[in-house]
């Protein structure tokens, strides 16, 4: 068998393979090191970090739906201090490539998070989550309450975060828009090195026996295989108009799913909810990508990026 290169460059970050995990589905990156060597992934992406620790929303926070799940975690996280002090040393010791996902309540908070992460060596790349559906009051969140739903805000936030860091900067977008190209182009104009998409789709599930919402927060974000076709379409839309790369995600649970995203134009992919089903899902996908390339006679995975025949 010839050597197969799985290496990609995601907006300045060299990844030994195009597979990372989706923020919020893999803790702080080291928890699962006993299931497999997490450093074998192209990168690990950590749970959204905020300046202060956050308790998150009240439970229940999880509700299953056909081929997917709703979550309303509300960004419970240890905050940047604890991350830098307690989590980072373990990640570094394991030699992980780190994408730090950040969340702020203003552009300045994002900028501060990015700056501190860079200064203290807390990340190899930064993913700014402008699209969390779970930090707002649900009754207000039905509207364009997310930064990622306003291209102007995306451009502004990106510019401000950009000016605070020289690390590769990814902007994570929401699928709850009419045209994903608009926020994607806005991120590019603002100076992003890549866009990450998609975050979860807003959704709701109701227990008809109690007549109550299954989530205490009423509304949650839909993830898992159910949303994959929506995500692939958005990656395809965005990749065709952007000059920066796309980090694709949404419902990936098999190597074939990951390849769909690459063919649609993603340079790398993130495995999210599938980890709940199989803790080593991301690693199995790395292996599957290798096998696919071997089977198809491809020696450099970059040949697949955007290679959809249409």
């Amino acid at each position, binding site marked *: 068998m010839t050597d197969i290169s799985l290496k990609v460059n995601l907006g300045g970050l060299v990844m030994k393979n195009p597979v990372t995990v989706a923020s919020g589905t893999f803790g702080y990156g080291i928890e699962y090191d006993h299931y497999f060597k997490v450093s074998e992934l192209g990168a690990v992406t950590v749970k959204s970090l905020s300046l202060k620790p956050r308790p998150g929303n009240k439970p*229940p926070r999880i509700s299953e739906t056909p081929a*997917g799940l709703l*979550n309303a975690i509300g960004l419970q996280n240890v905050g940047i201090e604890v991350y830098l002090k307690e989590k980072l040393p373990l990640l570094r010791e394991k030699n992980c490539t780190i994408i730090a996902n950040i969340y702020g309540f203003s552009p300045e908070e994002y900028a501060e998070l990015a700056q501190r992460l860079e200064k203290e060596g807390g990340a190899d790349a930064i993913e700014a989550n402008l699209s969390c559906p779970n930090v707002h009051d649900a009754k207000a969140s039905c509207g364009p309450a997310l930064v990622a739903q306003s291209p102007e805000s995306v451009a502004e936030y990106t510019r401000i975060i950009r000016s605070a860091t020289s690390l590769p900067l990814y902007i994570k977008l929401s699928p709850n828009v009419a045209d994903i190209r608009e926020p994607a182009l806005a991120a590019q104009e603002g100076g992003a090195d890549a866009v990450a998409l998609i975050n979860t789709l807003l959704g709701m599930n109701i227990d008809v026996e*109690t007549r109550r919402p299954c989530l*205490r927060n009423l509304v949650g974000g839909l993830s898992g295989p159910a949303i994959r076709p929506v995500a692939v379409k958005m990656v395809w839309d965005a990749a065709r108009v952007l000059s920066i790369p796309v980090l694709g995600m949404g419902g990936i649970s098999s190597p074939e799913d990951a390849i769909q995203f690459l063919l649609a134009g993603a340079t790398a992919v993130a495995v999210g909810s599938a980890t709940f089903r*199989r803790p080593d899902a991301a690693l199995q996908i790395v292996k599957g990508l290798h096998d696919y390339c071997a089977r198809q006679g491809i020696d450099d995975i970059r040949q697949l990026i955007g290679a959809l025949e249409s």
Partner: protein
Amino acid sequence: MTHLLDCTVLSNAEVAPEHRRMILRGEAIARDTQPGQFCMLESNPGLIPFLRRPMSIERSEEDRFSVLYKIVGEGTRLLSKIQPGDTVNVQGPLGKGFPIQPGYERHILVGGGIGIAPLPGLAEALIRQNIATPEVLLAARSRDMLLCEEDFKSLGCSVLLTTDDGSAGMKAFAADALREMKPHEKTVVYVCGPMIMMATVHRLCMETGSLCLASLEAHMACGDSVCMGCVVETTFEEEFRRMVRVCHDGPVFDSRHINWNAGAPVS
């Protein structure tokens, strides 16, 4: 140490209407399990349900362990279809089990409905470690739903029964029956069952000065500390410590740390 194992199903038999016991061969899990820990079972090869199902480990011995489950929805229905000889992928053991309390005089195990699942293993451990032969209080809807009565008796435990319809034992709620057992300051109560039952048992224990260790449930996505999905509200003052993960910090908690007024975590 948690493992991810393909386990062979040795049996999967009915123990009461809609209740089954599945015995699985999985040496590493059996070896490392402490009473009160749980596992995540893959109920099916397809994508629905998408998530694994959390189940308490009832007992573990040599190379095998068992789970006791009630068929309530699609996942448990699919579990019930599994045949001996089939393989089930299991992640476990997970969470922190019952902290064994040697300093107490009386050890009472209270199980409501399918909540008795983690208690047989706990009883065995208490006896094996020469701590006590626990007293057991079993609560169920009716006689045919009472589980494990004989198992506890054959361990030498005294067993008190209560049923909602009086078809076996007392016709009483578990907390009322427990009150008659007169728990005191030197009593530790280990309880697992519906939230409402655990809340009343907790309140009784606060009255009587007993220690109450409750095994909680929550809707789980990962079951293994990475998703933050399974939290319960605690009574801790600091805001950021308010929400703790049932899968990681529990499922067993000192009942004083739980905010029992927060509303049922599972709808």
